């Protein structure tokens, strides 16, 4: 009888552990899915940031919740259009990203978000801040490429940055064409490590390519 109980207990723990993992994956998946519609309402990115943060705090050893919390926070910043709030938002995104980084060091995806955070700080006052953050944006994208040569996102982000730079300053569609094409090519072969691993940017890359008539 004792034996049966022990077997039951072991099975139960295993099932619970598995259930826990399933619950984690399901929670991440639900929130990732919600990100697609969040672009309609910036405030929902704040909700998603908080959701991911709670998952991260509860799990303690998973880097992805913090990674997504940082990403949602960055997106929130890009969407609200209130420059006076961007520094605080970037600070918060950086806080999550540092947590993700301590759990998963030297990750290409994390370097991508670092460059986005620098972009956000820069656009608060490009005139005064470019000298400081321009090199940080560049450095993190180059680092991201080195950390994972197959990751399409550093190419996509760099392409979008360049597309948004005025033509007079060496930006524009023509200048960004090569990078966007390279990003598209890498997206076609890119396989995310798991179903909840970062896998965004392909649609936007295609949109940019369309906008530029490439």
């Amino acid at each position, binding site marked *: 009888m004792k034996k049966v109980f022990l077997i039951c207990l072991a099975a139960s723990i295993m099932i619970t552990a598995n259930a826990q993992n399933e619950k984690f994956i399901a929670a991440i998946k639900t929130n990732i899915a919600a990100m697609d519609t969040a672009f309609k309402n910036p405030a929902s990115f704040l909700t998603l940031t*908080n959701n991911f943060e*709670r998952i991260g705090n509860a799990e303690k050893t998973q880097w992805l919740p913090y990674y997504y919390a940082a990403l949602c926070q960055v997106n929130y910043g890009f969407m609200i259009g209130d420059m006076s709030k961007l520094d605080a938002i970037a600070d918060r995104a950086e806080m999550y990203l540092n947590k993700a980084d301590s759990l998963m060091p030297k990750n290409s995806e994390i370097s991508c978000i670092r460059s986005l955070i620098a972009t956000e700080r820069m656009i608060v006052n490009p005139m005064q*801040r470019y000298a400081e953050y321009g090199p940080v944006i560049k450095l993190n994208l180059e680092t991201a490429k080195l950390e994972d040569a197959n990751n399409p996102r550093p190419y996509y982000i760099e392409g979008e940055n360049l597309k948004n730079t005025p033509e007079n300053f060496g930006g524009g569609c023509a200048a960004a064409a090569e990078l966007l094409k390279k990003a598209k090519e890498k997206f076609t072969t890119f396989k995310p490590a798991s179903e909840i691993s970062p896998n965004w940017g392909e649609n936007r890359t295609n949109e940019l390519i369309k906008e530029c008539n490439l």
Partner: protein
Amino acid sequence: MRFFLYLSICFMPFSLLAQVQITGKVTDNRGKPLTGASISLKDTYDGATTDSLGNFTFTSNEKGDHIVEATLIGYSTYTKSIVLNKNIVLSIQLKELITELNAITLTAGSFEASDKKKGAVLSALDIVTTASAEGDITGALKSLPGTQQVGEEGGLFVRGGTATESKIYIDGNLVNNFFYSSIPGIASRGRFNPFLFKGTIFSSGGYSALYGQALSSALILETTDLPDKTQASLGFSVIGLNSGIQKLAKNKKSSWGITYNFTHLGLAFAVIKQKQDYFKTPVYHEGDANFRIKTKNGGMIKYFGYWSTGKVGFRTNDIDSVNLNDAFRLQDLNTYQNLTWKLNAGNGWKITPGISFSTDKQNISNELQDKNDVLQTFTNPAGYNFKNFQVHTKNYYGQARILIEKRLKGMNMIRFGSDYFITHENLHYISLDSAAFEQTIHEKLYAAFAETDLYLSPRLALKLGSRAEHSAILNKWNLAPRLSLAYRIKNNSQASFAYGIFYQTPESQYQPATPGIGYAQATHYILQYQRSANGKIFRTEIFYKKYNHLYKTATTNFQTNYADNNKGTGYAQGLELFWRDKTTVKNLDYWISYSYLDTKRNFLNFPYTMQPNFAATHTASLIVKKFFLPWKTGLNLSYNFASGRPYYNLKYDYGQQKNIVEDAGTTINYNNVGLGVNYLPNLGKSNKKAFIVWVLSVSNVLGQKQVYTYKYGTINNNKEAVGPTAKRFVFIGCFLSFGVDRTEDAINNHL
């Protein structure tokens, strides 16, 4: 059977499916709902985010003891233990934290130009791109409210104060000869290149207890830190050449730099006819050097050194006679050294010792000459004998300073420290008839200061300070209280107030003063309202200044003046407006400032209380900057206006034994339209090795008649207008920099 029972227990989830609902509202301590706050059931996924009304609701399958946490950036975290056995309603209050991001800034009386600081009204680049500034820091400040458009002499005339009532500091240390040596009838420019400084605070009154000996105003400049990259620069223009290098160490922990500047006005004066007849073309050699070393815990050692020598000589018509000229000659040598060390002692303590040393030597001579440039010596009528003279000055200034800062809880700070100034000024006067006198002034001024920044809430801040000084010459102490406070009315608007007492010793030209004389004194009251949002700033200030114990002068046998007593009085009051808009029109940035000033004084040789000749009642400026991307060209326009200023012929009447106003009047209004054009041909070509900027600047574009004031003969009471030395000045220059791709700066300057 039993087995199945066990099995069913085994597979029953640990959490039971009975859900509880947790709802509530999050507000700040004044009951205002907080949006975006995160509510979480600690160590679970469960939680919610507050909506626009501060409400939240979520359900949980958890049971038993748990902790609820509410967090929001800028607020303290809320935690509460709860037992999950029934639905729970929470009313949560979060306390706002005082951080650099939300704390109010003390702004009464001061304009800040900085790229980093919150509350800065201008950026470092603004100083350079203001058309009427012509590359001079103080020129740019003349487009802000509170300053006068005085053209007949250098310096900052602020809110009814003289130029000597404004003091200038670099990295906390006083600069005694910020402006080039003064030349009769010509406004001397500031010596230092605006690119040397990353931060500028211009206080038109009510400034901090860290600074003293200025009745009107303090200009506080902070030198740049390490450069981003090693770079070299080269420039040539119609007035000279310059070159420099800034070298950053490989480990990016230290840097050094030197620059050399050669100015020769021969070419410019050949094209642009000057009023004066130059027999010695102005030629200047200048050099500066710096090093910066990062020390541990974010400390920094900074050195800045400057050296300059120049010669100039010109003839002007002597005001007392038609047939005679004054031949004026000046040769000078000026040096300035400044060393500071900012060190973090840990635990919120920061200690900044600093020393500075400067020298200024001038050899000045004036000769009365006939139209054939032959020396003329008259002693009759009396007065001509004073027109042939030589003056040799040798001035040395030293300063030691220590500033100790301690960061307390929140943003609160205390600062205290001490200043020690040594002044040694030697003047040797020789007149043609060999009458000579020599005088040496030796002054030691000791000051101790303390101030505290108190943030009573994120919306209310207070700066309380006090400064005590002892001057060896006066052998007296003074105690100057200072107060500044700011209150945020709404998110984007704030009201500020500043009060302070300011003291000053007699200027060296009025020394030696009568023994027993005390300090001149000014009391400032400033009330400000400021509103800023979306790249627009509106600010208005009213002020009242009371002057007590201003110096009254008497004349020596050598026709020089000395401070006889300090029974002078006066006042200044006014209204100032400032509006800047960077966003309404894309790529267009403009600001407007207006100052109304009502001031009267009885000081120096004034016979009674009257409006000083350096104070215009109405002053206004319009500065416009626009960048044309397709042409890679920036266009800067400025318009400065000042209503006519009074002028006086003040004489000592020997019969009545007192000063009288022999003649008086008001000048015409002053108008000056300035234009600046910057062309950046390599803009956007990121692979170019050199970055090039072409600069064109024109003063008084419309050629309007400008009269600063009138001067009078000392013998014949002849009257002569003092205006610019040429109707208009045109500057063309080309500046190249290598090493750093400035294109990227430029791109983003104008995105």
